[in-house]
């Protein structure tokens, strides 16, 4: 759940609409309830989409968060 929390906080800083999609199901990155319903586990394939004035920046930042595994490397994986 902590990665979801971090995503929501990051998404809140952008004006654009940010969505994550998993297996056809779409979640609003601003809503933790919405993100949790994706049931995404480590290794799940997700599609990130952003639309709006700062979409490019949002994609860049959020992709970086995923790349860095939400700074949870070496930390016990706890949701």
């Amino acid at each position, binding site marked *: *759940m*902590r990665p979801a*929390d971090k995503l*929501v906080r990051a998404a809140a800083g952008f004006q654009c609409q940010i969505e994550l999609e998993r297996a056809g199901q779409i979640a609003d990155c601003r809503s*933790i*309830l*919405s993100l*949790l*319903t*994706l*049931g*995404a*586990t*480590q290794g799940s394939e997700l599609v990130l989409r952003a639309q709006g004035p700062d979409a490019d920046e949002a994609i860049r930042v959020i992709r970086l968060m995923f790349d860095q595994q939400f700074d949870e490397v070496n930390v*016990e*994986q*706890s*949701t």
Partner: protein
Amino acid sequence: MKFSVFISRKAICAELTATTKEGVITELVQSLVSAGDIKDADKADIIKAIMKREELGSTGIGRGVAVPHTKHASVEKLIGTVGVSPAGLDFESLDGQVASLFFLLVSPPDRPGDHLRALENISRQLRDDMFCRLLRQSKTIEDISQLLEEADGNSFGS
């Protein structure tokens, strides 16, 4: 993952009386002990672990809902309970609102997938305003139990 798989019916708390975060976690864990789902000897350690997780960021996910949880080696399968606080309490939730609906989960360290599937189900049901309203209105264990059964039957949510 359906509620019936991981919610201990006997541990459901229809009227939580605690007024603090640690208090409500203690009350919910105690109900799992009383129901025979976890051992009394593990109670203090489980409460400590849940509080430690809360320090990393509140599991109060907004809309009056909190999902305190931890992994603990003493359980062999995912076990959880539901509690309703009629008055609500400060759980340092993400949206700053008081929390009144609680889903507490304890999972075995080697089964992270189960834990996520339970969270997925809880969040999906909680997105339904009717489910939240009915849960808040529940006065007895039977009310809550029946509501969870109906939710399992897809009466609510998508």
